[in-house]
């Protein structure tokens, strides 16, 4: 009897799960497997693929075959794009931390009833269109934009500074669109922080900096790690921001991938690059899960 109701419950559960699982399998998880397969096929002449096994795409991720004498060399173009993606993502994460940490701290130290409002103010931009926010940054930093107009108007500079279509613009844009992802987890871990610990530290003659570094920071560290991952991962795979603010001159991984499906007409290479990006993201996520697990063990 008990056994029967058990199987019934299981059947009911999977029945309830089936629509969501079907949609996700069809339009999220399943296609990923096809990308893996495509990365081992031969590129068709006009896009698409030829169904014959080849590891060329994976070689082409980092290696280039010379057009004339068939010698192999590292693909500078790809490596510089990889490097730029990692560099700009790290910079974005760092700046987001420098600005996001004090902001989360500020919100967590407000009176209880106004904290929700401050957090809402952080989250509203996050839920608005990423393209629109990128576009808003573009308008501000363009040569005729507010920043340059004010600087020229004040006589600080004679000529507008070229900010748009530079790596600075991309970093600024990514910082701007992903900042809420840094503030949110840091705030979550700071909200429950017990300030009597800080009081105790001051009673023991600690300086403010020391209190911040030795008392507050270690306790909110899981939030900082979570925030850093949450900013780093989408920055690494960014597509819209570098396209709009980089002006096609400063490609990042996302744009390089897109190129293979557009002008490049090398779908297997695009697939291999996608899997590479996915692998880097997965490593970052595994690192996060493991450090979060360790943190839990040392506190629990």
């Amino acid at each position, binding site marked *: 009897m008990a056994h029967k109701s058990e199987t019934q419950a299981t059947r009911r559960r999977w029945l309830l799960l089936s629509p969501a699982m079907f949609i996700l399998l069809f339009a999220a998880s399943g296609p990923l497997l*096809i990308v893996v397969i495509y990365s081992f096929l031969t590129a068709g002449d006009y896009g698409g693929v030829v169904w014959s096994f080849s590891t060329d795409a994976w070689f082409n991720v980092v290696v280039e075959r010379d057009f004339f004498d068939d010698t192999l060399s590292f693909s500078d173009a790809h490596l510089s794009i990889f490097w730029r993606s990692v560099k700009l993502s790290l910079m974005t994460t760092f700046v987001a931390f420098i600005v996001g940490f004090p902001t989360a701290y500020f919100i967590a130290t407000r009176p209880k009833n106004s904290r929700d409002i401050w957090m809402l103010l952080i989250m509203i931009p996050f839920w608005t269109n990423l393209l629109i926010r990128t576009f808003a940054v573009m308008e501000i930093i363009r040569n005729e934009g507010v920043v340059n107009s004010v600087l020229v108007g004040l006589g600080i500079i004679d000529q507008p500074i070229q900010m748009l279509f530079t790596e600075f613009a991309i970093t600024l844009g990514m910082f701007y669109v992903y900042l809420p992802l840094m503030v949110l987890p840091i705030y979550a871990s700071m909200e429950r922080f017990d300030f009597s610990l800080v009081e105790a530290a001051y009673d023991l003659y600690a300086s*403010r900096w020391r209190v911040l570094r030795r008392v507050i920071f270690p306790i909110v560290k899981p939030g900082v790690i979570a925030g850093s991952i949450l900013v780093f991962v989408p920055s690494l795979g960014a597509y819209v921001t570098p396209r709009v603010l980089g002006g096609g001159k400063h490609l990042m991984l996302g744009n390089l991938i897109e190129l293979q499906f557009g002008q490049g007409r090398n779908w297997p290479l695009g697939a291999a690059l996608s899997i590479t990006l996915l692998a880097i993201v997965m490593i970052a996520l595994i690192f996060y899960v493991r450090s979060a697990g360790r943190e839990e063990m040392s506190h629990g």
Partner: protein
Amino acid sequence: MAKSRAFDIRRQTGFVPIALACFVLLYLPIILLVIYSFNAGESIAIWEGFSLQWYVSAWQNDKVQDATILSLIIAASASVIATSAAVMAALATTRTRGFKGYTLVFAMINQPLMIPEIVTAVALLIFFAMIKVATGYTGLMYLIIAHSAFCIPFAYMPIRARLQGMDLNLEQAGADLYGTPWRVFRRVTLPQLWPGVLAGGMLAFVISLDDVVITEFVKSAGQDTLPTYMLGQMRRVITPEVNAISTALLAISVALVIAFYLLSKGGNQSTGRR
């Protein structure tokens, strides 16, 4: 007491200015964008007086109209599909002791949050291209199902949170009074769950409305949504018309997010906060 007034233990040098600068930074670009959508001149940099002309010209632009209608159709369909699927999935995954395959199910539901959008976009481009060749169908269903998939985790989260805070006793009572499972669900569970469902649906709608990357890769010719239309415009000379469209989209998103906030806040209060 006297000590805390003379020496604020919560204060950290420079944190308040940075935080306030952060809020200014977050809102300044958006506010300027909204202001220039009302500019009388052609420029998005020089202010030439108040005017609604860019809203009028956006409204009269056929392409903008088509893109708006398409965006709304996709967002409405995707949010209904995603929310229905998410309600069922939440019922199956909450209030149980855990089951075989739970981790896999959880990973699958959250997958759209973890995997870079560009990778999913490329995967869908390849997969749907195969289906298009095989079936010849190039309609809207590709976009609707792609949007439904990445909306599921956003709809799932608030519904699950709501379900976890709900009282099982009422449903037990309903079942004890010989209510059929469906009747108990409709008359007892769903009314209590409703704020969560609404919140999840709204988040899904906003997420679908705002998507650029996946739509850009999945769409067939002539299937521009508002964001992909705007992305296309950004290659050319930008007029305040784009600001006007942006402002309209912003208004919808902000209204829905604030409604979501009030809804989830009200929901917490009615169940009583610990």
